[in-house]
């Protein structure tokens, strides 16, 4: 199975396997990666699933929707590489990539 490396808020690296088609939230949440709260369960309404993607992700994803970008602007310290884990759908191209969970979700 393809996998991601997730750096949690305690700077621990955790390997997370995923099924293509799943969202980053589904994969990381199932694995119990610390620091992802996802209060709305993927409804793009809470901004507590904030992750920061490494540069290797560039070109593998469509830009965030207006809705996602608006929600992200209320995350704590968003960066240009910030995304909401519930809005990023994974495919085979993402095998081996790394992301960092935001230090704080609110």
């Amino acid at each position: 199975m393809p996998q991601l490396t997730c750096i949690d808020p305690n700077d621990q690296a955790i390997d997370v396997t995923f099924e293509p088609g799943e969202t980053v939230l589904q994969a990381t949440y199932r694995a119990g990666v610390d620091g992802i709260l996802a209060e709305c369960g993927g409804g793009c309404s809470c901004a507590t699933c904030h992750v920061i993607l490494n540069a290797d992700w560039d070109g593998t994803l469509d830009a965030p929707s207006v809705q996602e970008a608006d929600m992200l602007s209320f995350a704590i310290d968003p960066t240009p590489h910030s995304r909401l884990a519930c809005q990023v759908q994974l495919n085979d191209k993402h095998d081996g990539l790394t992301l960092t969970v935001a230090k704080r979700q609110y």
Partner: protein
Amino acid sequence: MKIGIVGAGQAACTLIAELIRGQFDGEIIVFNGESHSPYQRPPLSKSWLADPTETESLRLLPEPIERHHSIQWIQSQVKAIEPDHGVIVTNNVSYTVDHIVLATGTRAKKLSIDGLSSEKTHVIRTLDDVMSLTSALDGVANIAILGAGFLAFELASSLKHPTRTIRVLAKGIRALPQISVKAADRLLDATPASIRVGVTVERYDEDNAALITNHGPIPADLVIMAIGAEPNIELAHACGLAANEGIPTDAYMQTPHPRVSAIGEVSLHEQPHLNQRIRIESISEANDTASTLAKRLLGQPEPFHATPWFWSDQGDLKLQIAGLSARTDEETVLINSETECVVIRHQGDRVTAIEAVNAAKEFMAARRLFEQGTISLENLLNAGSVFSLLQSSRS
């Protein structure tokens, strides 16, 4: 300390997750009255219904938390509790705990209609309900949805299909009465359902597959009842801890009995945002009451102080509400562009809620402002948008 949690829904699972994350050093016994491991309800009427895949995607608890050594899962309905002795009784076993948490949620209301068989009657509260609906959809050309709240229109969007006609039948004089007329219009413009208001159902005519109503016959191969929910208060009622409309608690989710707490949408407590004791049915209420109780059980009590918020997806439209309004609150339109619609609900100058359609920034700004205190209508109108008001409050 041993905690027994009755119910394994949203509030129970948030409590469990926060206790585990907070290094709770006692034991937790959870009584799950459903036959599935804990799952999320909101997708049941939205994305999941539109495209039912495996149930894993509905998972409510991270695997390491669900399997945590301090948790014991009992797949059984609780039949009774005895608060004085800390006893929880299932079909055949009694368990003794130090503290009982009632997180029993609500159940869908059902109307009995003359002539309508149970196979043709559906409600949407549980995963089993949705599975039974999806397995009954083959060859169905006419769906009637009774009730005209968020659930009804989410269902209509998710069940949209070229071969199906979906009719939403409202008893009252308007659809989506929970929100402003303006915000409701935006959502209703996009609904695939046709809407009838002021409908009273008399009976079901099996031979012609139609509901007989005061508006004449309405074709219905199946009927979905989305007419609201009633709280599961029987366990509390049997020991004198329930009021008709819920299980009353203080601001720390404690019932009058020292061994019993109640969380989630069954709990009835003071909502500081409204200065009112009411029961709220939403994920934010489930999560915030659970967090309040978790803090108390972890020895860091803080009174409930959250502002309610809510969202609903109808196809491509996303409604987000910060705060909570009464149906009688006034409405003033703040933004109404081709893409966005933002309506202020208020009682005089005091803003009670912001209803945002496809306007996430306004919704989030409103949540932040409500966390800081009250919002004045005049200030908001002068600022022109919730976002600008938030920015000016920060500078």
